[in-house]
Structure formats: C-alpha cells, structure tokens
C-alpha cells in the first residue's frame, strides 16, 4: 500500500536524569524524590551518530517528517555507565506533550522498544501499550561501572483507519492496484503531528532501593523534644536541578577568527603573487 502526498510529523525528545537514592516499584508519572533531569558525570547516552542525547533540557532524538505508511523508522541509543564508583539503575517513562492535525498519530502509529534486542514495550508513542509507560516507570536494568546497553526504538504508522475521517476532500482510491489517497484535484494533503517525551533517568543502585517513596516523603527525623540543630540531610530528597549552562561558542568564534586571518593572509599572498607576475 502506498500513500502519496501526506505530511506527518512525529517527534520524540529524550531526557535523562539522575537520582542518588534507590527506588523501585514506581507507580506515578512524577519523577521520584531526588530524581532530577541531568546526567551524572560519565553516564552517557549516545545516538547512532555518536551525538550525546542527554542534556538536562532534552534533545529531539526522534524526528520524522513525511512519514510513509508502513515504513519502520528506528533509532538506537547506547546507554553507558563510564563511572568507576557507582552502578546505576536506568528507568524510563513517557510524557505526552501534544498532538494536532487531522491524522491521529497516537492511534495510527505503533511504537516498540528493544533493550539489547529484546522487546520490552509495544504500544502507542504516548506510552499506552503492554503496560502504561505514562503511569509506570520501566526499569531498564542495572548498569555496573563500564557496562553499556543498546536501547532501540521503532515507530511504524500501521493503521490506515486514522485517515478515513480526514474531511478535506480526500479519499482513498484504487489506482493501478494501489490504495492511493487523493484530494479534490489529485493533490491530497493531510497533516498530523504528535510530540512526546521519552524520559530516562538514572538512580544510584543502593541497598535500600525497595524503600517506598511515600514512606520517605513526609518522614522527618524524629528529634523528640530536642531542639538541637539538625545536621542530617533532607531525608533523601534532592531538589530539582534548576541550573543550566549554555555554551558560549568561544571555540567556534575563535576558530572563525583564525580562519578569517588565514584567508586574509592567503588573499594578500595571492595579490602579491599577481603583482609580482605583473611586474
């Protein structure tokens, strides 16, 4: 089957974070106490081209336009723990952002995740599938120092029904034995867009990883009647990371400056050579 002149856009962004506490059995979409977006040093996530996709603000790591029906779009991410001191558990959940347009891509697309080749999730891009990634956090396993795993994501638009109700003069017709979407003047155009976040975060693997988040949430160190100044930490809670350092591009500016000077020198040499030749 072939669909012509359809425009679709599908985007996913990846966020990775860290928590210094261990928690399992997560049942809420919120990050657990202490999990903040931002990777610890030397915990890396790289895409196929070797680009880091782990900034605190997230990266568009899956972006497909002019999506073709039936075609599988895929992306690999290599998650690596390059630290020597801690092992990490990596968790994953999905946060839908928005969808728009005439084509319901949430309904029309199927999304699969594979961890080291083994399928771990199959469902829609917003996390509703063999389990609900918008409600549950998936444990991608423990990463010992030096360990790495490959997470593969595949998305395919496999439900043609989502364009049946597109009401802009389009219709599916059989042309030369193929189903073709055509508009009133054979120039069909329909649009669908969906955006979502696939959020990954890491947590240091500590022995009390079974601690229930709610138990820790309101527990205050029992000081009884002692008014001694507390020296303990904030009970495992870590405030969100509210910082960001933007690159100032000094290296590239300097390189441009050097290149400009070199070009200028070369042009002078060329001119001088021309002068000498004229003489």
């Amino acid at each position, binding site marked *: 089957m072939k669909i012509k002149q359809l425009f679709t856009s599908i985007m996913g962004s990846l966020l990775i974070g860290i928590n210094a506490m261990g928690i399992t059995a997560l049942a809420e979409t*919120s990050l657990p106490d202490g999990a903040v977006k931002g990777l610890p040093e030397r915990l890396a996530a790289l895409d196929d081209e070797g680009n880091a996709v782990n900034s605190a603000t997230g990266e568009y790591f899956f972006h497909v336009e002019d999506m073709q029906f039936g075609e599988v779009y895929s992306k690999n991410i290599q998650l690596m723990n390059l630290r020597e001191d801690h092992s990490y558990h990596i968790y994953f959940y999905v*946060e839908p952002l928005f969808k728009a347009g005439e084509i319901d891509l949430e309904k029309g697309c199927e999304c699969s995740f594979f961890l080291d080749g083994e399928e771990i999730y199959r469902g829609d891009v917003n996390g509703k599938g063999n389990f609900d990634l918008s409600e549950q956090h998936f444990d991608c396993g423990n990463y010992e120092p030096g360990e790495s795993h490959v997470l593969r994501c595949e998305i395919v638009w496999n439900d043609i029904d989502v364009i049946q109700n597109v009401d802009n003069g389009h219709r599916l017709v059989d042309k030369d034995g193929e189903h073709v979407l055509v508009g009133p003047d054979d120039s069909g155009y329909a649009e669908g867009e969906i955006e979502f976040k696939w959020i990954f975060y890491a947590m240091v693997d500590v022995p009390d990883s079974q601690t229930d988040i709610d138990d820790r949430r309101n527990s*205050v160190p029992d000081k009884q009647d*002692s008014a001694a100044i*507390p020296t303990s930490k904030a009970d495992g809670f870590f405030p969100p990371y*509210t910082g960001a350092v933007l690159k100032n591009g000094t290296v*590239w500016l300097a390189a441009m400056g050097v290149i400009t000077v070199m070009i200028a020198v070369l042009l002078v040499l060329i001119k001088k050579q021309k002068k000498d030749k004229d003489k």
Partner: protein
Amino acid sequence: MKKLVLWAMVVILACAGIYCAKRYYDEAYLPRKQLKDADKEQRELFDRVRPDVSVTEAVSEENESQPEYDPLADLKAENDESVGWLTIDGTGIDYPIVQASDNSFYLQNGFDKQYNCGLGCPFLDYRCEGFGESVSIVYAHHIQGEQAMFADIAKYKESSYMAAHPRGELLTADGMCEVDFFAYLNIPSDDYAYQVGLTKKSDRDGYIDHIFSSASYTSGFTADELKRGDTRLLLLSTCTYEFWEARGVLVGVIKQK
C-alpha cells in the same frame, strides 16, 4: 599552479569557516535565542494574566464574608495549577507560581504548560500543601549568564542586595501576604533546608536553628523571634554555581496582610 593551490586553500578555509559558523549558530546562538524568545513570550503571557493587586485587595475586603472568594481565580482560568503570584520590587522577580504533582514538569514547561526550551516556570514543591505550612519551597531556573526566572535570587548572595530588596509580596488563594526576607543560604542540594512537613514544634525550631546556622548572613530577625508563634517560611531556591550541586536559597517570613 601556486596560485591555484592558494585559491584551493582559501576555498577549504572558507568551508571550514562556514562549518564553524554553523556550529556556533547551532550550539551557542540558537539556544540563547530560543531561550530569550521563550522568556519574552512568557513575560507577555504574565503581563496578560497578572492579577491587579489593587482590585484584588478591594474585592478581597468586600468579600471577607465570602470564604469562597479566590483572588487567583483569573490566574487559575489560565492554568488550573496556579497557587500564587510572587513579586519582589526592584528585581526581575514578578511571576506566577504553579504547582504540579512532581518537581519536574515546570522545569521544562511554561505557565501555559507548553514546552518552553527548558526555561520553565516558578513552581511550589509538590510536597507542600499551599503556603499554609511552616515551610514552603518555590523553585525556578537560574541559567548561567541569563537574566531570567530566579537569576536575581543569586544576587542576594551580597547582603547589600538584601538590604536594597528586603521585601516581597505573595498573592495566594488566601489573599495578599508580605514576605520579609531575612536569610540567604548557599548550600548543597541535599541540605536539611529542603525538608518540609515539619509538624512538631521541636522540628520547626530545629529547622529554624539550621537555617540560621547555615545562612551566609541573616538580617532583621533572630531565631528566637521566629520560633514564637506559627511562623511560615518561604524559601526561594535556585541553582548557583559556586560548587557542584550548589543552591542559592532566599528565605523569608510570610505574613498575612
């Protein structure tokens, strides 16, 4: 021949220059521009939704007998997770405060709940129940080199800045409050100052002692004064960059007007 080589070098260098310009644009210029645009857009939105304090106070007095009156009603019409509006005169801090079910959503999304390039929107710690508890913590971004969100909180590191801007106003569902700032903390992220839910008096007293002992400086109040009565503390927290996971926290006392 030599001339040809020189021209080839010029072309190669020009290509390299274009590549550098592209990297500079992608890595340095564009993110800053996106952030500035997001900030400008959000400030325009704030201007549209900012509650008129004079009207709010007048209506509040008229409606004293009507406990259901909510001065944040208009704000909540725009964002149902609005819990307040904070203003510190003379600083850039004049923002709505929202509260989500986690401490991550408003790190990336603006007041309109749309992704805004990681600028976020000031938000109340999800563990707090409004501003009625003994400790309420509000977070917002401090992006290094940018004057957005809580960038001005880091300026309170200098006590002279506190002396110049010692007071703020906090509009909550219960009406207008005054916030008297008295301490600035430069602490690690796992500090006890981030503890909430202090139900016992002994815990509250211990917490106040901790604030005073870990503050860079204090002014205006003593620990004993704050231990009397039901003191409500407001902590404005953001990241600073003095050390790994450093936080700058401005602490004030909330007083109902």
